[in-house]
C-alpha cells in the first residue's frame, strides 16, 4: 500500500485515491488543429523507470487532484502538491 501525504488531509492509504496517470501531458488548445498534438495528448506517455510525475485524486477525502512524484521502481514518494498550483 502506498502512503500519500495529502496536503489537505495528511498521510492516507492510496486506495482512498483515484489514479490519474502521467501528469506531464498537456492538453492542446481547444482550437488546435494539429492532429499530432492531440495524438500525443491522448495516447503518448512518458512511462519512465524512475521518477514519475502523476495525478492522483483524493476521492475518499478532500476530492482534490494532486501531483505526486514517485519512483516507479520502488514507490518512494518524493513530493505531493495540489495539481492546480503545480507546474506541468
Amino acid at each position, binding site marked *: 500500500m502506498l502512503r500519500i501525504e495529502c496536503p489537505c488531509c495528511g498521510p492516507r492509504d492510496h486506495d482512498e485515491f483515484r*489514479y490519474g496517470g502521467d501528469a506531464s501531458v498537456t492538453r492542446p488548445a481547444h482550437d488546435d488543429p494539429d492532429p499530432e498534438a492531440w495524438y500525443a495528448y491522448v*495516447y503518448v506517455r512518458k512511462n519512465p523507470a524512475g521518477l514519475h510525475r502523476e495525478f492522483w485524486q483524493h476521492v475518499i477525502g478532500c476530492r482534490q487532484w494532486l501531483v505526486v512524484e514517485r519512483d516507479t521502481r520502488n514507490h518512494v514518494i518524493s513530493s505531493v502538491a495540489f495539481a492546480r498550483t503545480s507546474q506541468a
Partner: protein
Amino acid sequence: MARYSAFSIFRNALSGQKSWQRAWRAAEPKPSYDVIVIGGGGHGLATAFYLAENHGIRNVAVIEKGYVGGGNVGRNTTVIRSNYLLDGNTQFYEFSMKLWEGMSRALNFNVMFSQRGQLVTAHSADQLDGFSHRANIMRLNGIDADILDREEVRRLVPYLDFSDTARFPIHGAIFQGRAGTARHDAVAWGYARAADGHGVDIIQNCEVTGFVRDGERIVGVETTKGRIGAGKVGLAVAGHTSILGAKAGLELPIESHVLQAFVTEPLKPLVDHVVAYGADHFYVSQSDKGGLVFGGNLDGYNSYAQRGNLGVVREVAEAAIALMPCISRIRLLRHWGGVMDMTPDASPIICPTAIDGLYLNGGWCYGGFKATPASGWCFAHTIATGKPHPLIAAYGLDRFRTGRTLDEAGVGPSAWLQ
C-alpha cells in the same frame, strides 16, 4: 541437437542419465548477426525460432538481460484461449491456438498443453446476450464456442456459488472447449532449445544499453558484453518496451503496470477447467501439482517493481470467495508480480517502425502468453520481409494516429482501468 523420445530416455537410463546434453548452448556474442532479437522471453525466442524455421535466417542472436524464463513468460497464469471479439484479434488468436495444438511436436519438447476448456460466467441476461454475440463471432470464424445455461454450468462446475445468497447469481456462461493451459517454462525452454538447434545464439545475462546507428539506420546494439552489429533489430521486451523504445528515439503509447498472480497450497483435483468470473476480474485454474493458480486486476499505477500491493491481494481474494466460497480457508503459497506493457486499447503492437532496421513487438498488456507462438511467427515474417504479416495488419503503431484502435477492453486510453 539430440531428439527427445521414449527411446532416448531408455538409452540414457542405461548410462545412469548422465549423458544428456545441455538444452541449448551458453553462447557468447559474435561481432555481428543478420538479426538480433532483444528479449529472451517467449515472444523473442519464438521469433528467433521462426526466423530460422520459416525464413531460413539462422545467423540470429537473442539477447536477454536476465535468464531465459525469468520475465513474464515465467510469471503469467498460463491461460490459452482464442475467444476474442474484434476482427483482427479473433483471427490472430485462433491462429495462435492452432500453433499451440501442434507445438510440442514442432519443438520436440513437451509443453504440457492441456485443452481443458475455459468458461466465463455470466451474471445477467444482458451479459449472456453479450457472450452470445461473442460466441457467434467466434463460430463464424471457425472457432469453437458454446453458450451454457445455469444448469449446464452447475453440472460442469458445481463448486461455484449457486446458492440463493450469491451476490451475483450465475445466469450462464460462455465456454471454449479448446482453451486451456500450458507449462509456461517449458514453452520458453522448448523455443530456446529448438532455436538453438537451428544455430541461433541465446545470450543470457547481457543487457542492451543502447543502439548503434549509421545515419538514421540502426545497425547494432550496445550491450554489457560490448557492441554487436545487426542487419535488423527486433524488440520483444514486454514491460520494458518504453525504456528501450526511448533509447531508440520512439515515444510510445504504453504504460507499464504490475499484475499480480497467486498460487495456493496444493489441493486434490477440484478445478477441471479454466474458470473466469464474469462479475469481477478473477480467473483460476489448477496446476498439475494441485495449486490453484489465479489472478485479477492490475495494481493500478505505473510500476516497474516486480511486486505488488496488498490491497489488490484483498480484492482478488474477495472476488475468488464470491465465486467459489469453498476455497475461503485455503492458504496462499506464493504471490508475485510481472510488469505489463499496457496499450491504450488493450491490443498489442507488432510492426516495422519509422526507424530503419528496428522492428517492434510489444504492448501485450496481460494477454501475451497465449499469443506466444503466433506473435513469434508473425514477428519473424515482419522482420524477414520488412512488411507486416497479414494477421497482424491491425496491430500497427499508426492505428492510434488514424483512429483504427482495437479497443477490446472498451475503457478508452486509460491503461490502468483495463
